[in-house]
């Protein structure tokens, strides 16, 4: 029997419901408003009343209106059909919502209609199921029993989309029967499992999983030691991200957080990218929506969109589903991880998610912590990033979820609760600086403040040497502001120019240039060798102007070199040109 209740209070998107029977924390219910059903989630229970956050506007609800509880937690639908989709925070496909709304009126299709929820996976689409398990097989939670073709996951260059036994399965079951190869929808029964005590379970291609609970069908967690290739030089070389690691990108507005996330979504060497636009501008999502289908993924030769899922809960969409959106994103990621794939979750921005928690906490009249954020802010942030990781699955293969979150600190000041709580739990910090973005030095990752615990694509001591020059160059630059160029020794001046050179040719990368936007690791190594040679060289120039002229010239050639395709003829000739220039300037040493 399902539990029902009556609304006893309405305050913003929060309702209080007096219920009969039993309810669970985070259980989903629907508030009935005429012919509309508004989805809500229980966030607090007190006696026979519970507080629920409504995932829609509460306008029009009255005291005494009915609420029907579902007995289920807020869950995502997992199965074939998620790739290339654009979902809102509750996994409603946005294109389908528009189509459904257009049935109301022409104008209505432009807007998100209240109380309209659609299944996350298409129900009518048929998938070519290929069984891989035979009757009698012993099956545990998450074990693959077959696969289907979905886009790039065609069982040729990439593995097929694996169909797995429900993650909620307890103990070891026996496969009683499984359908033959053929076309099935996600809701068709494809197999029957029998438990040790004889209970039977029909298995479908689709399964539901509560988004706020991590999927744990793996044998062990592995240390994230391998570098995730983002092809952004300053990240891979200086502040690397690991496969299965976590990192954050805090920065003031206009510093290029979103461009950096978009570049990463495009070029990172992973199998699936899940991009959660959480409380940000709708316009930016539209750019991704229109551009990604056009871009070809070099790995598969197919549209980039085929490996991408976008969870889009922009700033004007309901706050409660914004809170849910990052969990939906990471749950989808964990699903693909269970297939042995490497998944990257990009959350832009976690500050908006934290603000959603703050709004909710305020309405619950909880005692506030710093800047009115709830006291559980830190543990929620920590728990979210902890869902990243590289894991060993039961069949011996490994899969991973890497999480990168942007943070939008108030006033660009990193001493605020969300940035600080995030820094405690991530493995990499890419701090964007206003000074760099004002000087148009993109990506504006501050090379002095940022850090990473992960392994670089270049040997650590070589990276450290380069960073030491950056640091020294910065000190000299500060000094020069006071004493002027005249008061600086030629040696210091050369070090300063070396640091500027490293910055200009290696750290800075033009996200809008075809060749420069992405630097694969092999190319980074070649480039770093060249930069290192320049940094280590013992130049001897007669005076400062000559030194500056030399570096400007070298820099120009290097930037031209960056623009040439890797290992092309132009690339090779510019490379030897650079070597010659350096050799000439250090002649006789």
């Amino acid at each position: 029997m399902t539990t029902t209740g009556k609304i006893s209070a309405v305050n913003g998107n929060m309702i209080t419901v007096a219920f009969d029977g039993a309810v669970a924390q985070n259980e989903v219910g629907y508030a009935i408003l005429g012919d509309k059903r508004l989805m809500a989630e229980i966030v607090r229970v007190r006696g026979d009343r519970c507080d629920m956050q409504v995932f829609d506007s509460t306008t029009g609800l009255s005291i005494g209106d009915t609420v029907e509880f579902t007995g289920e937690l807020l869950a995502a639908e997992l199965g074939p059909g998620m790739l290339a989709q654009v979902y809102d925070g509750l996994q409603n496909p946005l294109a389908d919502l528009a189509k459904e709304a257009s049935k109301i009126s022409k104008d209505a299709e432009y807007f998100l209609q209240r109380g309209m929820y659609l299944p996350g996976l298409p129900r009518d689409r048929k998938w070519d199921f290929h069984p891989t398990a035979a009757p009698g097989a012993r099956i545990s939670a998450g074990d693959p029993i077959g696969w289907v073709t979905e886009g790039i996951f065609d069982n040729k260059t990439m593995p097929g989309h694996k169909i797995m036994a429900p993650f909620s399965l307890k103990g070891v079951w026996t496969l009683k029967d499984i359908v033959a190869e053929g076309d099935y929808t996600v809701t068709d029964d494809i197999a029957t499992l029998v438990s040790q005590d004889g209970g039977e379970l029909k298995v479908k291609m689709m399964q539901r999983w509560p988004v706020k609970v991590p999927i744990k069908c793996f044998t062990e967690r592995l240390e994230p030691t391998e570098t995730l290739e983002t092809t952004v030089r300053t990240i891979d070389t200086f502040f690397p991200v690991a496969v299965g690691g976590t990192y954050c990108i805090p920065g003031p507005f206009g510093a290029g957080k979103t461009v950096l996330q978009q570049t990463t979504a495009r070029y990172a060497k992973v199998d699936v990218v899940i991009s959660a636009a959480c409380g940000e501008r709708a316009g930016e999502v539209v750019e991704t929506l229109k551009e990604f289908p056009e871009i070809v993924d070099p790995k598969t030769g197919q549209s980039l969109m085929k490996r991408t899922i976008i969870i889009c809960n922009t700033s004007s969409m309901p706050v409660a589903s914004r809170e849910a959106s990052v969990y939906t994103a990471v749950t989808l990621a964990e699903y693909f991880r269970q297939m042995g794939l490497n998944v990257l979750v990009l959350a832009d921005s976690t500050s908006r998610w934290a603000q959603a928690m703050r709004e909710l906490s305020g309405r619950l009249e909880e005692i506030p912590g710093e800047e009115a954020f709830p006291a559980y802010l830190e543990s929620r942030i920590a728990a979210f990033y902890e869902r990243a990781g590289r894991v060993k699955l039961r069949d011996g293969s490994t899969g991973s979820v890497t999480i990168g979150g942007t943070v939008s600190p108030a006033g660009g000041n990193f001493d605020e609760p969300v940035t600080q709580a995030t820094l405690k739990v991530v493995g990499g910090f890419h701090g964007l600086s206003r000074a760099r973005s004002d000087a148009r030095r993109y990506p504006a990752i501050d090379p002095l403040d940022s850090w990473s615990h992960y392994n670089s694509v270049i040997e650590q001591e070589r990276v450290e040497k380069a960073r030491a020059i950056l640091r020294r160059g910065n000190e000299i630059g500060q000094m020069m502001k006071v004493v002027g160029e005249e008061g600086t020794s030629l040696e210091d001046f050369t070090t300063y120019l070396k640091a500027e050179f490293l910055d200009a040719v290696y750290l800075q990368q033009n996200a809008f240039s075809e060749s420069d936007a992405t630097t694969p690791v092999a190319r980074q190594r070649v480039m770093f060798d060249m930069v290192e040679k320049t940094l280590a060289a013992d130049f001897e120039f007669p005076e400062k102007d000559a030194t500056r002229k030399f570096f400007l010239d070298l820099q120009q050639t290097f930037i031209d070199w960056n623009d040439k395709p890797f290992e092309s003829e132009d690339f090779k000739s510019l490379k030897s040109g650079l070597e010659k220039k350096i050799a000439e300037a250090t002649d006789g040493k």
Partner: protein
Amino acid sequence: MFNNKVYHKIDALSGSVATLRAEGVKYNEIAVVESRAGTSLAQVIKLDGPNVTLQIFAGARGVDTAAKVRFLGETMKVSFSDALLGRAFTGSGEPRDGGPEIEENPSPIGQPSVNPAKRIMPHQMVRTNIPMIDLFNSLVKSQKLPIFAKAGEPYNELLARIALQADSDVIVIGGMGLKYDEYLKLRNTLDKSGALSKTVMYVHTAADPTVECVLVPDVSLAVAEKFALSGKDVLVLLTNMTSFADALKEIAITMEQIPSNRGYPGDLYSQLASRYEKAVDFDGAGSITILAVTTMPGDDVTHPVPDNTGYITEGQFYLRNGRIEPFGSLSRLKQQVNKATREDHRTVMDAMIKLYAQYKETVEKQSMGFRMSAWDQKLLKYGEAFEKGMMDLSVNIPLEQALDLGWKILAQCFDKGEVGIPTKLSDKFWPAV
């Protein structure tokens, strides 16, 4: 269900908020409060058991505990018709200009957000004939852009000029916390130029009740949305959004909400975003472009209002000393349009800004008493010409003329090879001096 019962007893009054016991009331519905202070609309902002909390638009001053309260069973609506054009109203939709009330087509305000899947990429430039905008930071149809300025800057003058010169079908002006004479000035400026006939104004003046201030953006944008859906390109001008945020703060504190930063409510970002995100280009219909003024208390861009705004909008214009600053000002969407104007647009834009940055450094050097080289002298000449020819707000020329002027200024101050412009373009455009 029409709730025609009249309630006669108010239990609590505080700020603009009244609480009474009533039945069958819907969240966010509108009520009429008749009291000694007169008649005012009010909105239900909280339901708790039998207790209904109302926000009285005209404020609670003079409202007595025996006031008559009647619930209307519907949410806040604003009338929409072509008859709105040329008119001025208050935040709650009452005529402010002595004209008749308009009651056609009542449409609800604060409608749901646009489905991101139904948005299209912004692609059309809005010409303003202000070189600092057209040439350096082009405004794009469906963009949302604030003007950041400290108090005392001529931001309303700038807004009025853009309103007059920008190509749009309809202008909606939302005034919040305006001084009465500012409102009159704005209105007269539009009237003189004949633009008033395509303008509708919703104005809250500093003397009006706070609640009406909060209604202004919603009412303005609801009307704009209706015009846009009927195929019109609408320009919405909101001044001043800092007053709007301050009104939100005042109400939140009265409601005993826990403040987050400098007294502002924790949902300030969502509140601002839900308004700014109304900017849209409808596929197959019209568009909404939003230009807003955000004053920066203490000229501090990290103040919560400009700071949150910067995270929401697509760039910003800094108005400083009566000029649009080339540094810091940014139109995030300019790349979408400035490739299709004239082939030299981007190049002139980049070259002139880079040289102006060098000029600024030279001025600094000069003030520190360093010797000026021949190059410095050239930069000084250039900087002066640039400020006079381009930055002065009185300059009023179309983009093409502004580009030509740019070449002329460059040619007067520099040699062809000194400005970092590809030879192919300078051969074509470099004027003979």
